[in-house]
């Protein structure tokens, strides 16, 4: 393999796992330029990993703003839940009233039919 071909594989060698083709590995073992390039990629990866522990300072007030957002969301959720409960209770009451009305009407209708039959 030529250095140019191997160079294209080097950024992915950092992933480990699958690794590079054996031909590329053999090339790197005998090529100082490619060894140097691989070493620079490893140096880059070490430095990138260190950024995880290099924290930019969050702006003042961010935490209270985040907590305020969570609180407001929780209150909205509670309000929606209360409204939903009230709507469900209202609908249930309407349904019960409707059912009671229908039952009453059925009883009245039954009685009036009986009266007509007796009169006849």
């Amino acid at each position, binding site marked *: 393999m030529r250095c140019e071909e191997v160079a294209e594989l080097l950024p992915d060698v950092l992933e480990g796992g699958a690794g590079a083709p054996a031909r590329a590995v053999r090339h790197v073992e005998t090529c100082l330029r490619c060894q140097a390039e691989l070493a620079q990629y490893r140096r880059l990866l070490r430095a990138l990993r260190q950024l995880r*522990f*290099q*924290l930019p300072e969050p702006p003042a007030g*961010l935490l209270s703003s985040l907590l305020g957002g*969570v609180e407001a969301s929780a209150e909205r959720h509670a309000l929606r839940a209360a409204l939903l409960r009230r709507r469900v209770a209202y609908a249930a009451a309407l349904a019960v009233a409707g059912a009671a009305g229908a039952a009453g009407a059925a009883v009245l209708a039954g009685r009036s039919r009986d009266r007509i039959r007796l009169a006849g």
Partner: protein
Amino acid sequence: MGPAAHAAPRDPLTASSPARLAAGARWGGETPEALVDAARAGDRSAFEELVRATYADTYALAFRMTGDEEDASDVLQEAYLRAYRGLRRFRGDAAFSTWLYRITANCASTHVTRRGRTRTSVLSPDAVVPDDRPEHDPEARASVNSDRARVAAAVADLPPRLRAVVVLRDVYDLPHEAIAAELGISETAAKVRLHRARKRLRERLFPLRGESADGSDP
């Protein structure tokens, strides 16, 4: 608007960090797992404790992805609201921090796309808190320290599409699959972008003989 000025150095292992989560650290007398369980059961104060413990670390991710303090703050607002609403769906397959990173990455990606911004160079070396953790290898530590500020600046100068992938993979160690899912791209596209980002960074930061530092051939 740039980030806050240099703050007092702090040890990330005593502040909020994924390392603390992984180590089963205790916050407010509770383990992270207990806090997550309590928050999932509807305990808002437990969720607030999780916010306190993780926001500095999550802010760092949002800041690195957006390159802007104001945008990062907006991203965090959205991310924590989504996390709060979606907490019941968190099954604990991954660490809470990883779950939060994914949400933050998704929010940041959407935010950057929506704003159509390509802000760069705001992550100045002065904007960061140095890592003063002891290293096992003093020589490697000296080398890494000298590289760190340059690397942070170079990452910030990458185009947002490349920056997002390299930050999520090489800084935050998210798997390709998660990165692709949260950025709304294929896994192959995520790998291609990572390849390009690493190549560009390597050429800029650590040029070989015969290469110029801006990555172009002489």
